[in-house]
């Protein structure tokens, strides 16, 4: 499980490798908040290599999205597989997030 951060076209891209769950969500939260503190405003979380997300993982995404919006920024999500899409639909969080099919689609729209 790891979170890789990179910068692409002025967007902070975070790759979630493994699970995003109660056992490691603080790490993602801290990484993104540090970047926000450092002045970054555009964020993309890429779930290409993500196994599953639990309710705490969803919670941290909601909380980050809110914090980023408060600073005039935006958080987008990309590359959700079928399982993850179902999860966002079940919880209706698909209505709260800007979810792109691919990383490129997410980046180009920013």
């Amino acid at each position, binding site marked *: 499980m790891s979170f890789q951060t990179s910068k692409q076209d002025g967007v902070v891209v975070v790759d979630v490798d493994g699970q995003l*769950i109660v056992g490691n969500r603080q790490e993602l939260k801290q990484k993104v908040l540090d970047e926000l503190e450092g002045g970054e405003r555009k964020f993309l979380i890429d779930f290409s290599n993500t196994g*599953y997300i639990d*309710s705490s993982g*969803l919670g941290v995404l909601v909380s980050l999205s*809110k914090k980023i919006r408060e600073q005039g920024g935006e958080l987008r999500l990309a590359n959700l597989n079928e399982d993850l899409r179902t*999860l966002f639909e079940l919880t209706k969080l698909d209505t709260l997030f800007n979810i792109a099919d691919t990383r490129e689609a997410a980046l180009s729209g920013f």
Partner: protein
Amino acid sequence: MRNAEPMKERPGAAPAEPTAFALELPSDLRLIDTAITYLVTRCREYHFAGSRLTLNFRVGVAEALANAMIYGNGRDPSKRVRVEVELDPQRINVRVVDQGKGFDFTELRDPTLPEHLEATGGRGLFLIRSLMDEVDFNECGNCIRLTLYREKQQRPLAS
């Protein structure tokens, strides 16, 4: 898959013998994924597969473990969570028991209502109920029983 063998049932049919096993873990959130990975391996060997395993089972059981460790046992690592699994060709049955006092599981809010959509919590039991086919608690609420069928079940109209 297994084309060479004569096939009595559909491919990937489960072995006939029911099996059961149990784990007991300290309340340490880092153990949840380890436990889930093991449980999924065992279910896969028992020919469970697909989204029912990788989404419904994984997330449903992970939520139950997290609640048991966090709320039931107050994250006290000296307190344990017990996981009992029964596998048969039709279904997976999981019981998660914590050492806590339980809770009133009848009063649960709906996290998909617009006024709750931006809440950072309150989706755990909702996900359990959405993803699992049957969910029961013991009387006090420190033991949750989850059942997932191999195939998607027709949901009763009133749940």
